[in-house]
C-alpha cells in the first residue's frame, strides 16, 4: 500500500551572502492516513524547515513531498498549518479569523448558513464559541492557540501541521490543550504532524516519534513507535511500562547520543 504522505529524500540548503548552509539532508518518511507523528529535535536543527516544506511554504532543494501521489509544490488548505505563534489576524475577531479560512475554502461550495454553522462547530470543538466576538488581543495565549487550531481544522485539511503548538503556554494550559487535541484526533481521525521539543508531549500524543539529529545537514536519526492503546490518560501512564520505555528512548537519543551543541 502506498503511503498517504511521502517525504522522499528531502534536502534543503539556504544561501545567504555567498555562504551556503545545508540544513536538511536526505530526510525520508512515510506517514499513513490518520497517523499522529511527532518530530522532536534540538532547537535549530531544522524541524520548522521540514514542516514548511511539507506545507509547501518552502521548496526542497533536493527530493520532494508526495501527498496522495501528488507532488506538493505550493501551500494549500489541504495542509493546514497551526503556527508556533498562533498567527491570528489581530484586526479580526475570533469568529472572523475562522471565517476568513472557511469562506475562502468553502465559499463556492456551501451556503452562507452552512458556513456559519461550520465555523461555530469548529469553535465549539476547541471550546471557544463563547469568545467568538473577541479580538485576539483580548484573549489568553492558550485561547489564541485554540482558535488557531479551530481555523486549521475548519479547512478540513488532509493533514494538520502543528509547529510547536503549545510551546509558549504554561504547563496547565498545555496539558489541557493536549487533551483536547487527542480528543479531536480520536473523533476526526485526521493525519497530524506535530513539532515539539517536549518529550512527554511527544510520547503522550504520538503514534510515532521522529527524532532528528543535530544540524547542519540534519536528518532523521531514529523513528520510535509508541505502542500505547488509545484513549490515553496522562495519569494512568505515569507508571506504564511502555510509556516509560518510550520516554527513556527519546531522552537517551536527545541527551546521550545527540547532545545539543550551542552553535553560536
Amino acid at each position: 500500500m502506498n503511503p498517504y504522505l511521502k517525504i522522499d529524500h528531502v534536502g534543503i540548503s539556504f544561501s545567504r551572502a555567498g555562504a551556503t548552509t545545508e540544513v536538511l539532508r536526505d530526510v525520508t518518511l512515510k506517514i499513513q492516513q490518520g497517523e499522529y507523528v511527532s518530530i522532536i529535535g534540538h532547537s535549530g536543527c531544522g524541524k520548522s524547515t521540514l514542516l514548511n516544506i511539507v506545507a509547501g511554504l518552502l521548496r526542497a532543494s533536493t527530493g520532494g513531498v508526495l501527498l496522495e501521489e501528488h507532488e506538493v509544490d505550493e501551500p494549500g488548505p489541504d495542509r493546514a498549518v497551526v503556527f508556533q505563534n498562533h498567527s491570528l489576524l489581530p484586526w479580526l475577531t475570533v469568529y472572523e479569523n475562522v471565517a476568513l479560512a472557511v469562506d475562502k475554502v468553502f465559499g463556492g461550495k456551501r451556503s452562507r448558513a452552512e458556513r456559519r454553522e461550520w465555523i461555530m462547530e469548529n469553535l465549539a470543538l476547541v471550546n471557544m464559541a463563547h469568545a467568538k466576538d473577541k479580538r485576539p488581543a483580548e484573549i489568553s495565549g492558550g485561547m489564541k492557540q485554540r482558535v488557531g487550531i479551530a481555523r486549521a481544522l475548519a479547512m478540513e485539511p488532509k493533514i494538520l501541521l502543528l509547529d510547536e503548538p503549545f510551546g509558549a503556554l504554561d504547563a496547565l494550559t498545555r496539558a489541557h490543550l493536549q487533551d483536547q487535541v487527542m480528543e479531536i484526533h480520536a473523533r476526526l481521525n485526521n493525519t497530524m504532524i506535530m513539532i515539539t521539543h517536549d518529550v512527554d508531549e511527544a510520547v503522550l500524543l504520538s503514534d510515532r516519534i521522529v527524532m532528528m539529529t543535530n544540524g547542519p545537514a540534519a536528518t532523521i536519526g531514529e523513528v520510535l513507535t509508541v505502542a500505547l492503546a488509545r484513549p490515553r490518560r496522562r495519569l494512568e501512564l505515569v507508571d506504564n511500562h511502555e510509556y516509560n520505555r518510550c520516554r527513556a528512548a527519546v531522552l537517551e537519543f536527545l541527551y546521550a547520543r545527540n547532545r545539543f551543541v550551542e552553535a553560536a
Partner: protein
Amino acid sequence: MANSMLKLKTVSEGVAAAAPVATASVVPLARKPPPLSARLLPVAQKIAAATVPPLIIAALFLLVWEMACWSPTSSLPPPSRVWSEAKDLIVDPFFVAGTQDIGLGWRVLTSLQRVAIGFGLAAVVGVAVGTVVGQSVWAMRGFDPLFQVLRTVPPLAWLPISLAAFRDASPSAIFVIFVTSIWPILINTAVGIRNIPQDYRNVARVLRLNHLEFFVKIMVPSAAPYIFTGLRIGIGLAWLAIVAAEMLTGGVGIGFFIWDAWNSSRLPDIVVALAYIGGVGFLLDRLVAGAAVLVTRGTASN
C-alpha cells in the same frame, strides 16, 4: 460654613416661593441634594481639571499680549484692538457683504475644498504607489532616496513649476497640496507594506488568497497604522501648503485673505485669520487621528 448654610437657606426659600402649592413635596426634595451633588462633584472636578488650566493659560497669554502691545505706538495690535476692529470677522464667520467681503468661514471652506481635492488625490496615489513600492526590496531601495529628497522640498518651491504647468491659480494650488502631502503617505505606506509579518503572508499563502483578496484582507489592515501615520502628517502639510499657495495665487481662500489684509494694513484681521487657520488645522489633525482610531481598532494593540 455659615456662608454656605445661608446660601442653602436662600435656595430652599426660593424653591418654596416658586412652588407654593407643592410645599409638601418640596421638603423631602430639599434633603436629597447632598448625595446628588456628591455624585456630580467628581464629574465637575474632572471637567474643571481639563478646562481650567487651558483657560488660565489663555487668559495669561491675552494679558501679556495686551500689556506688550498696549502702547499706541506699538506696531502690532493688542487683543482689545483686534476685538474692536475685527469684531465682524470674529462674531459672524458666514456673512456675505460683497464678492470680496465675505466671512472667514466661507474662505476657510474654499481652502478646505482645495485641500480635500489635493489631499484626497495624494492619499489615493500615495497609498497605491506606496503599496507597489513596498512590495519589492529593489523598488524600495531604488525609490527611497528620491522620495526622501522630494519630501524635503518646501511647498512654495513647487509653485512656480506648478504655475508654469497649469497656467491657472486653482489647479496650481491643488497640485502644490498634492505634491507636498503625498511623500509621507507614500513612504509610510511602503514601510507598512514591507513590515507585514511573514506569519500573515504564510496564512494568506496556505489559504491561497488571490492578489485582490490579499490586498484587501491582509495588506491594507496590516499596514493601516502606518498608512494613517502618513495621512496624519500629510494633512498637516497640506494645510501648511494651502495657506502659502493661496497667498501667491489669489482667489477667495484664507491664505489670500491674509495677503490682502497685509497689503491694506489690516493687522487685526490677520490675527483673526491666524486663529482660524490654527483651529482648522487642529480639527483636521484630530479628524484623521479619530479615523485612525476607528479603523485600526485592534491592529495597533498587537
